[in-house]
């Protein structure tokens, strides 16, 4: 591992200003992704700026009936928070579906949203990878890609974003609050992460060096009945191969409103807007749910070893929507 300096900061301005003093500094949250990648030689910062002591450790209720989650709130505290559990249950469920009790005690909200892909070529410095070394190639396309993207990928990169939390947040209209230099900005989570295109090394739409200060969720009555469902290759302590966060409001047997987002299918937490549009106003029935999923999956570009995900995410979507609306399959 490369040697590095370590600094603690106690205010947001100092954190951002300190990062700007180095060409190669990183914010350190719980370290559960960054320290791991440093051991692997994937990340080689010369300076770590520990942001866990910033005054960003609270979950506060906002004027619009929503909540603001500080960037340094640990995943376990987020999932244990009574307001989150009651008003945004999918968020608590998504956090609890990820990693382990030990890791959630360390992992922060900001770090979770910024965690890197688990693509096995990205984490192996002996292999080419366009995300890690731009222009070096993407061996995943013809190689191991059983858990990589079916939506929004490019010829340059087919990585997926592994965060469970981000899927629930994006379904429930979350907004990411960032500090870039001297200015603060609020970016809807739907626009925060970038699809790979020809620059898979660029993962967000904010400036390099931007500090996440928090994530807000609006007051959203539909969210109180939201749910998260995760499919993985073992019962626990494994990343998703497909996941979904959803909420449905029914009125007179029709879908009055809905929220659907998918995980482990793209480089971003995938808000299924086409499925949502297709479903609104439709009768609450298995056929409507399947048609909605199919509308979203029209854009799917599966490869040889991840084609199973198309049927998987479709079935999980139908199942969860049926469960949320009390329709039997």
């Amino acid at each position, binding site marked *: 591992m490369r040697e590095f300096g*370590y600094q603690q900061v106690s205010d947001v301005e100092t954190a951002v200003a300190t990062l700007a003093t180095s060409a190669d500094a990183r914010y350190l949250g719980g370290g559960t992704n960054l320290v791991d990648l440093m051991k692997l030689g994937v990340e080689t910062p010369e300076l770590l700026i*520990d942001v866990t002591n910033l005054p960003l450790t609270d979950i506060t209720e906002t004027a619009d009936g929503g909540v603001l989650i500080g960037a340094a709130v640990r995943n376990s505290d987020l999932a244990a928070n009574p307001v989150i559990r009651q008003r945004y249950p999918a968020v608590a*469920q998504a956090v609890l579906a990820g990693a*382990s009790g030990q*890791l959630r005690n360390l992992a922060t909200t900001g770090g979770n949203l910024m965690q890197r892909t688990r693509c096995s070529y990205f984490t192996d410095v002996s292999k080419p990878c366009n995300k890690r070394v731009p222009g070096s190639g993407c061996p995943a396309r013809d190689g191991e890609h059983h858990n990589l993207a079916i939506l929004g990928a490019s010829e340059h990169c087919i990585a997926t974003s592994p965060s469970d939390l981000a899927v629930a947040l994006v379904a429930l209209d979350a907004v990411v609050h960032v500090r870039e230099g001297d200015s603060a900005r609020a970016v809807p989570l739907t626009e925060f992460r970038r699809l790979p295109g020809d620059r898979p090394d660029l993962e967000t739409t904010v400036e390099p060096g931007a500090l996440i200060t928090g994530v807000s969720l609006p007051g959203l009555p539909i969210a109180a009945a939201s749910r998260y469902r995760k499919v993985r290759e073992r*019962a626990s302590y494994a990343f998703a191969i497909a996941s979904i966060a959803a909420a449905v409001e029914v009125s007179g047997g029709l879908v009055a409103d809905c929220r659907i987002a998918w995980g482990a299918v793209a480089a971003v937490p995938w808000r299924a807007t086409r499925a949502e549009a297709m479903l609104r106003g439709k009768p609450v029935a298995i056929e409507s749910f399947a048609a909605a999923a199919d509308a979203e999956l029209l854009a799917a570009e599966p490869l040889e070893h991840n084609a199973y995900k198309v049927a998987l995410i479709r079935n999980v979507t139908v199942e969860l929507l049926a469960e949320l609306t009390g329709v039997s399959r």
Partner: protein
Amino acid sequence: MTRSSLSSSFTVTVNGEPQLLDLDNRTTLLDALREHLDLTGAKKGCDHGQCGACTVLLDGRRVNSCLVLAVAAQGRSVTTIEGLGTADRLHPVQQAFIDHDGLQCGYCTPGQICSAVSALDEVDRGWPSAATADVGAEKITLDDSEIRERMSGNLCRCGAYVNILAAINAVAQ
């Protein structure tokens, strides 16, 4: 600005005793405990957060010490398996692992026990898990599936899971 130093001097309280450390910033909490403080109870299984053998309590909460930089634990309090009980006054979870034969080779055991102590505390505080049917419910009913889920961050290569489950159930009663 001058480049930050590559090593740091700081204090961490370990099993109740303040320890002054002067370490290369790259040192993990696990290596600090094992290589610098001679506390070899916490084990290095994977060194990547994937097995739980290195589990210790940081300010009373279980963490993977292999992913915590020692320098980032400065000013905080660490409890390792050595600090949970003594040979003649074992912690109830330690005693239960013996009574229920919750180990074979013993390599994962310090991590399992630290994790179980903290998991039971999380249940007392009403924290839900992925096995909790209603995350909004205030009280947790600790059944086998809850214990399995809450302990999923600790792998056991010997497969002593059945007896580990029995040991934790016994303490939870």
